[in-house]
């Protein structure tokens, strides 16, 4: 059980409207990722669901129950914070057991659940340490452990990986995904990193300035972005946009082509340009190209592609991989 429904949820801080009205349906067992640039209101939305902020108007329904006015602890949700928010003076065991202790659970049941959670998260050897004696990844796992033991109906993650280094982030990403498969509990995950969103989500919610721009599975968003913002946000490196005559020829205000959807040639093609920086990674080659009209383009070639700074190059978008946008940025 863990379905969450938001109905016309609005939030303002004083005169500033942070969330102008969001409708959203999260099904039981889904891994939903809120993604968007910083300041887009994704964390606020999560905190509204958690109950740490009061909604200005609208309704939040969890498992069929209206919890709009309910206290955070009554919503049966568990949250993992960006700073982990572990209690520094308690051992790992006491940290994990804290929500159970607050719920007045008998000591032996507490211990059983702590051991179970520690087993899942490989924390058994660290139970008697303090958070200060743990590495970043271990602290992260303790924070997750504290969420697991409550057996909540849904987990909320607020940018949990942003304090970890790159290698650890990839590991923890996989661990959280595995945890989701194992527990099959609803998870709502906030991040500004579209790679995390693409790799982990069942469903991505792209937010901009408090508005939901598009909701869909990772590949849906990749294949059919609803507008220019989503198209530019999803995918790495970002989509290239070409405006002007070339776009007008295709009946659009702007056209977008992803870096991986160019066919490159040193002799002929639709657009001509000059190579600026060439990044040869072996498996891929990323070329930063300036078209003759001055438009900067990033293109990816699979494998090796022997060009260098200053070389002339011609690009042709692949058939059916060109996105067209109108003046307001909506996809045509």
């Amino acid at each position, binding site marked *: 059980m863990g379905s969450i429904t938001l109905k016309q949820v609005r939030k303002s801080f004083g005169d500033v409207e942070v969330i102008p009205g969001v409708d959203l349906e999260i099904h039981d067992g889904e891994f939903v990722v809120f993604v968007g640039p910083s300041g887009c209101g994704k964390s606020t939305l999560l905190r509204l669901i958690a109950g740490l902020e009061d909604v200005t108007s609208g309704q939040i329904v969890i498992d069929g129950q209206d919890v709009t006015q309910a206290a955070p*602890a009554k919503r049966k949700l568990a*949250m993992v914070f960006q700073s982990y*928010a572990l209690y520094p003076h*308690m051992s790992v065991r006491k940290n994990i057991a804290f929500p159970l202790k*607050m719920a007045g659970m008998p000591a032996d049941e507490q211990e059983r659940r702590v051991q179970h959670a520690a087993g899942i998260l490989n924390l058994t050897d660290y139970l008697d340490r303090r958070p200060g004696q743990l590495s970043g990844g271990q602290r992260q796992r303790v924070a997750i452990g*504290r969420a697991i033991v409550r057996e909540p109906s849904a987990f909320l993650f607020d940018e949990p990986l942003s304090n970890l280094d790159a290698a650890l982030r990839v590991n923890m990403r996989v661990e959280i995904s595995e945890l989701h498969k194992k527990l099959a509990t609803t998870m709502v995950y906030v991040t500004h990193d579209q790679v995390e969103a693409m790799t982990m989500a069942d469903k991505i919610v792209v937010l901009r300035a408090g508005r939901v721009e598009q909701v869909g599975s990772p590949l849906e968003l990749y294949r059919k972005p609803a507008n220019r913002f989503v198209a530019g946000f999803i995918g790495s490196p970002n989509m290239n946009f070409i405006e002007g005559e070339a776009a007008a020829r295709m009946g659009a205000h702007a056209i977008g082509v992803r870096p991986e959807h160019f066919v490159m040639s040193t002799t002929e093609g639709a657009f001509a340009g000059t190579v600026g920086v060439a990044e040869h990674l072996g498996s891929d080659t990323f070329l930063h190209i300036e078209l003759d009209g001055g438009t900067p383009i990033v293109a990816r070639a699979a494998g090796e592609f022997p060009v260098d700074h200053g070389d002339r190059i011609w690009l042709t978008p692949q058939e059916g991989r060109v996105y067209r946008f109108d003046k307001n940025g909506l996809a045509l």
Partner: protein
Amino acid sequence: MATRHQKTLARLMVAPSVLLLLGWMIVPLAMTLWFSFQSYNLLSPGMEQFIGWTNYKYFLSDPAFWTAMQNTLLLVGGVLVITVGGGILLALLLDQPMFGQGVVRIMVIAPFFIMPTVSALVWKNMFMNPVNGLFAWLAKAVGAQPIDFLAQYPLMSIILIVAWQWLPFATLILLTALQSLDSEQMEAAEMDGAGTWAKFTHLILPHLSRAITVVILIETIFLLSVFAEILVTTNGGPGYQSTNLTYLVYSQALLQFDVGGASAGGIIAVILANIVAIFLMRMIGKTLE
């Protein structure tokens, strides 16, 4: 990374100030130690002579000594309890968002800027005076017999005055500590189902423990030597009811003119302060880890 040369240089540079401070401390201490073994009375000048432990024997066997000892501990303990307890409460209140927070905070700190003699006199004449005092007026307003605080409860009154002076200090330190509490931790506790009391005992108090230790340490150092408040209010009386060790040493030296005996008392006070310091240091070592 400091090289050996830099370390030597650093030691050389701090040496003058260390030596100055050492001399500043060691000269009075040595003189007190010296006087404490002398028969030295201001009423019989030129009669000084070495008399061994006699001064100490006299001072320790003085019935006033044990009363003073007890009063000193009661004074320190009482003020600590009031300031730490009240300080935590005030800090929690001042941490709440409210209108005019800045002004209120400054006003709360104000008593700390008033010199001890002045605040003691204000308390004595404007609050505790049995005829003109505010408390007497209040008592009379409800038809009760005014209490002569400084005569009937002298030590308690002095504890009250000193606590009033030190409450702002404790509040300030604890408020600063409170503001450094991670708000995400509080939110996590809220999600974990902790109520107000549970948050206070499981999160806020442990977080404040370091600041509380600092407050206790600093206040103890100053409270062991409370003097001005006693001098201007009760003069240690009635009898010895509000005499602490500091005041007893003062009266021995400047009221009874027995410098030798007072010096012995001074040395005993130094030893007492060091015993307290050892306990406090251990306590601090534990909380600071």
